């Protein structure tokens, strides 16, 4: 049984111009101890999907799913109280903007301690020691003094380490990292990514790593799921996906990687942007930007097809799928 199992998830926001479906028919499975990379351009619905798992979709958003289970527990059927005892403890999340994701009025030590106290993770008297230990684990130097720092006194990278310490404080079995390095300097990005991977390995927790950077995924994820305009358009094992992408969107993302663009005068880019509420086309959502669009692509939306674990949402997948083992 997978740790996280989602079937046919949709998240809708009523807006002045009608209902906007930010996530549409999404599928996702994640096994214990696995790293899943979720890739897609900005606006593809990656964050909304993960917020739905956390139960953090803001009012008046609506979440529906055929199945949304964590470790066998139906996430949509939980009472608010049951959900609160799960979220922050067994499922934790790290956000994109470390500088604004911590409360400016409280010290970082206090904010981590609050998680421990909320879930009774350690006895009250041991909270401080546990926070210091967590600081060490995420590589924050001089924990005893940093404990008393306010978020504005720390750098973005330090604050992201604090966020990670907070997320792992109650030993989650699933850690969701939503573009954890996007807001950071390039030199810091690698450090934070390495930290996440080493923590994942030490603790054997599942990691959902959301990013818009294919390069990040290549080095870290076991499996990749590509999202576009609220839909999953392709899933494959990382090596297979990089060897033989099946969806033209995935192929375009890979072509845009600097290391693959050797020989090109300019880095290839995908023209246009992810369609929002006003400009979702009929048929395949990617058809206005696709090199291979046919009449069929404009007329009829493609289903998710292909062998389990290597599906693509395309009428004309690029390559035959590579054989999937395990």
């Amino acid at each position: 049984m997978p740790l996280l199992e989602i079937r046919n998830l949709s998240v809708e926001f009523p807006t002045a111009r009608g209902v906007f479906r930010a996530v549409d028919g999404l599928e996702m499975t994640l096994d214990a101890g696995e790293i899943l990379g979720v890739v897609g351009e900005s606006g593809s619905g990656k964050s909304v999907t993960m917020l739905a798992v956390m139960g953090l979709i803001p009012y008046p958003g609506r979440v529906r799913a055929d199945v949304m289970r964590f470790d066998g527990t139906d996430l949509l059927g939980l009472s608010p109280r049951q959900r609160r005892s799960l979220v922050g403890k067994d499922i934790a999340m790290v956000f994109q903007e470390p500088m604004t994701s911590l409360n400016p009025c409280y010290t970082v030590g206090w904010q981590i301690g609050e998680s421990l106290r909320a879930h009774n993770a350690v006895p009250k008297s041991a909270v401080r020691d546990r926070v210091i230990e967590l600081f060490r684990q995420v590589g924050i130097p001089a924990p005893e003094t940093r404990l008393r720092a306010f978020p504005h006194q720390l750098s973005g990278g330090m604050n992201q380490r604090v966020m990670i310490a907070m997320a792992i404080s109650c030993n989650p079995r699933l850690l969701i990292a939503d573009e954890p390095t996007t807001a950071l300097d390039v030199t810091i990005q690698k450090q934070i990514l390495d930290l996440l991977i080493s923590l994942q390995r030490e603790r054997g927790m599942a990691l959902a790593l959301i990013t818009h950077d294919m390069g990040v995924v290549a080095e870290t994820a076991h499996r990749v799921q590509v999202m576009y305009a609220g839909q999953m358009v392709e899933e494959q094992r990382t090596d297979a996906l990089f060897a033989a992408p099946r969806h033209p969107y995935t192929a375009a993302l890979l072509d845009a990687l600097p290391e693959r663009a050797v020989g090109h005068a300019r880095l290839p880019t995908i023209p246009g942007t992810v369609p929002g509420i006003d400009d979702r086309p009929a048929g395949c959502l990617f058809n206005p930007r696709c090199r291979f669009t046919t009449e069929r692509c404009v007329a009829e939306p493609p289903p998710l097809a292909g062998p389990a674990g290597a599906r693509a949402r395309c009428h004309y997948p690029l390559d035959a799928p590579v054989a999937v083992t395990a």
Partner: protein
Amino acid sequence: MLRYLLRRIGMIVPTFVAVTFLSFMLIRLVPGDPIEVRAGEHGVPPERLAEFRHQFGLDQPLWKQFLDYEAQLLHGDFGTSIVTQDSVLHAFFQLFPATIELSVCAILFAVLVGMPLGVIAAVKRGSGFDYGLMGISVTGASMPIPWWGLMMILIFSVALGWTPVSGRISDAYFIDPVTGFMLIDCWWSDDAGACTSAASHLILPTIVLGTIPLAVVARMTRSAMLEVLSEDYIRTARAKGLGGLRVVVIHALRNALIPVVTVIGLQVGSLLSGAILTETIFSWPGVGHWLIESIQRRDYPVLQGGTLLIATLVMLVNLGVDMTYGFLNPRIRR
């Protein structure tokens, strides 16, 4: 922080001069001087009036009177009342506790009622409660105190007979003014009846004086909360699995307090002017009542000294608010 404090204190001196100048000039623009007002229609001979004017220095040129007054202030002398011969400072401090008592009750009322209302309106934004409260608070923020006071008296004192019409306590009680704060003195005297009487005298003036700040606090709390509730760190707090009340109070309200406290501080000046009106309506024996009387009697030293003392207090309170602001907002703390 220290340098900031010193600069703020340095600002007090020019403000002092400006306040004394304004009160000095404005009261002299009102026709009739203290001597005339006192003599009234008794037909006192003009030579006698001139003699009195000379005695109080009122026959000097205005610029000389003003400079003399400033020099006198520099020596810490606030002067004596032309009418009662009482020291202005002494009278002020005797009456001031009554004003503080009323103002503190009004602010407490405004904060204790207005803040929760604003929080609920923000959490339930767009609801009937939200629209209703905002509609009422527009009216409340522009409530004319004299009219509002009279309406409250008519309804609750005259028609319903629930509360007394005026004063601080029923004549049946004599309470030794130890602190000058009636509630505290009554409590000390251990007289339950006096306590009830003092409290019931406070209710209407508190509501009347507290209405405008209540409306302002409720609106400000609501808008500050709306802004804070959409912040990333609120989502983080929810992602930690914290309860809704904890997220709203500990994480959101704590941040929303920064602008709200500023607004409360800014209300102190207008609160004191509201207190003057409220004291007059309810015959509340505080400095407001005293100042209005001093205008009627053209009691120049009382009006000038009283205004200056009130201005000083407003400045001190504003300074205190700025300090609180630094305490509430770690980002500007040093």
